[in-house]
C-alpha cells in the first residue's frame, strides 16, 4: 500500500518577518520587504533562537534554518521531543550556496593573517550540509540526513527527497526545507556580474519591465510525516504533498530551455505523481524570479503542461514580496502555497502592472483574491544548472 505524506508543521523566517503565518498574512496584505534592492530578514535576531555556542558554530544560513525549524516542530506539536522512533526521523535541508558568509570572512583571515589563523570551525560551519547536520543534532533526528544542492531548486528538491524517504519506508517523518543567506560582497557581485540581479533593484515578476531578481535571505522548514503515523499520534494535519516532479533542462548552465520544455516536464510529472488532472489545479506559486528569461519560459511551461486550463489558474510569485531566497525559495514557497490553499486565497504578484507580449496568464495583479475551483496547488522551483523541481500540494479539508 502506498505510504502517503502529510504536512504537520511549518516554519519560516523571511524578509517579511519571523513566522510562516507572518509571511502569508503580510504577503496576502500586499506588503513588500524589498528595500534598496535587497530583502533582508531584519526582524530575525539570532540571540532569540541560539545559544552563544550555537551562534558561533553556525553560519547565518544555518541560524535561519534553526529558527524556522523550531517553529515547524512546535507547530507540529513536537516541542516535548519528537513522537516517532528517532532512527526513523530524517532531516533534509537544501541550500544554494551554503555558508558563504563564513567562507568569505575566513578567506579574509587567510589573506591577512596567514593559514595558521584560519578557524578550525571554518569547514563545519561553511559546508552546505551544515544546516541539515545541525538540525539533526539539535533535535536528535537519527534517520537519513543530508543537504540538497541544486541552486534555486534546492529547497524543493529537499522536500521531494524527503517525500520519497517517507514513501519508500526509509523514514516515518522527515524535517525538511531550505535555507539561504548569501548577501555577501562576492555573491552579490557575482550575481550582478552575470546579469541575474536587477540593476534597478526592483522585483516585478512577469511585468514587461522586469530586469532581474532581487536577492533575499531566509529559511523554510516543514515537518512531513507518514499519514498513518501522524494519525496514530493524533497530529493535526495541515495538508499533503501529493506529488513531486524533477527534471533537467540539460540545455545551458544558467539560461532556461526556450519554451520551458524541462520545466513543463517537471510540472507534468508532479501532476502524474499526484494522480491529479491539470483541471484540478487551483493555484500556481510560480518560480517567478523577475528575470526576463525565467518568467517567459515559465509561462510557456505552464501553458504547455496545463494546456487550456493555464489561462484560468491564478499564478503569483512570492518573490515579488520577499525577493529570491535561492536555495530556501522552494521550501518557503511550498509553505506559502500550502497556506494559500488553506485560506483559499491567491496572494498577489506585487509590482506587476505592464503585460509583456506572450506573458498572458493570470498573474494576480494588484491584490489578493479568493481561490476558485480545485484543491491542488503547484509550487515551481527552477535552478541554475537546468534543475527543475515541482511540488504538488493540497491543504487538509
Amino acid at each position, binding site marked *: 500500500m502506498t505510504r502517503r505524506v502529510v504536512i504537520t508543521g511549518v516554519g519560516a523566517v523571511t524578509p517579511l518577518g519571523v513566522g510562516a503565518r507572518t509571511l502569508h498574512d503580510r504577503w496576502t496584505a500586499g506588503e513588500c520587504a524589498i528595500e534598496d534592492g535587497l530583502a533582508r530578514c531584519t526582524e530575525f535576531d539570532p540571540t532569540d533562537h541560539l*545559544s*552563544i*555556542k*550555537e551562534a*558561533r558554530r553556525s553560519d547565518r544560513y544555518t541560524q535561519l534554518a534553526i529558527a524556522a525549524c523550531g517553529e515547524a516542530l512546535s507547530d507540529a506539536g513536537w516541542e516535548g521531543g519528537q513522537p516517532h522512533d528517532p532512527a526513523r526521523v530524517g532531516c533534509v535541508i537544501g541550500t544554494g550556496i551554503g555558508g558563504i558568509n563564513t567562507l568569505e570572512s575566513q578567506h579574509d583571515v587567510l589573506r591577512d*593573517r596567514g593559514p*595558521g*589563523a584560519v*578557524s*578550525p*570551525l571554518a569547514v*563545519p560551519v561553511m559546508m552546505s550540509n551544515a544546516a541539515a547536520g545541525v538540525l539533526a543534532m539539535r533535535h536528535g533526528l537519527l534517520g537519513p540526513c543530508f543537504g540538497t544542492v541544486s541552486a534555486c531548486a534546492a529547497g524543493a528538491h529537499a522536500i521531494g527527497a524527503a517525500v520519497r524517504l517517507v514513501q519508500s519506508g526509509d523514514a516515518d517523518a522527515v524535517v525538511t526545507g531550505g535555507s539561504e543567506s548569501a548577501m555577501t560582497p562576492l555573491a552579490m557581485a557575482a550575481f550582478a556580474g552575470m546579469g541575474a540581479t536587477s540593476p534597478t533593484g526592483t522585483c516585478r515578476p512577469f511585468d514587461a519591465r522586469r530586469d532581474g531578481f532581487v536577492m533575499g535571505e531566509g529559511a523554510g522548514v516543514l515537518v512531513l510525516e507518514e499519514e498513518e503515523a501522524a494519525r496514530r499520534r493524533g497530529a493535526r494535519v495541515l495538508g499533503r504533498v501529493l506529488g513531486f516532479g524533477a527534471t533537467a533542462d540539460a540545455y545551458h548552465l544558467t539560461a532556461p530551455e526556450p519554451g520551458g520544455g524541462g520545466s513543463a516536464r517537471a510540472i507534468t510529472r508532479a501532476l502524474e505523481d499526484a494522480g491529479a488532472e491539470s483541471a484540478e489545479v487551483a493555484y500556481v506559486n510560480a518560480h517567478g524570479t523577475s528575470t526576463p528569461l525565467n518568467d517567459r519560459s515559465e509561462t510557456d511551461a505552464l501553458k504547455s503542461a496545463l494546456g487550456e486550463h493555464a489561462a484560468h489558474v491564478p499564478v503569483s510569485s512570492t518573490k515579488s514580496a520577499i525577493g529570491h531566497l535561492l536555495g530556501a525559495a522552494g521550501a518557503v514557497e511550498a509553505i506559502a502555497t500550502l497556506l494559500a490553499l488553506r485560506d483559499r486565497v491567491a496572494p498577489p504578484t506585487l509590482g506587476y502592472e505592464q503585460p509583456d507580449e506572450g506573458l498572458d496568464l493570470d498573474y494576480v495583479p494588484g491584490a489578493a483574491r479568493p481561490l476558485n475551483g480545485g484543491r491542488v496547488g503547484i509550487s515551481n522551483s527552477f535552478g541554475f544548472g537546468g534543475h527543475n523541481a515541482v511540488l504538488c500540494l493540497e491543504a487538509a479539508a
Partner: protein
Amino acid sequence: MSTTATREEIEDRVVSALVTFGVEPSEINRDAAFEQLDVDSLDLVELAQIVEDEYGVQLKGEDVQNLRTVGDALDLIAARLP
C-alpha cells in the same frame, strides 16, 4: 606580540576566550574540566590560535588534545611563554 605577559593576564585572556566560546563565566575555574564546560577540540584549537597570536606560545595538536582542565591549559601556556 607581548613577551612579558603575566600569569594573571594569560588567565584573564583564557577566561575571556572561553566566554566567547559560550561558557558561563561563573563555571570557569582552574579545576573545571573542558568536557564539563562543553569546550571541545575545535574550541581548544581556537584557544591555541589565540595564545600563539597574542603571546607567541606555540601549542601543537597533541598538546591541546591532552588538556583536561582550565588549570592544565594555564600551566602549559605559562610554561611555554617565550
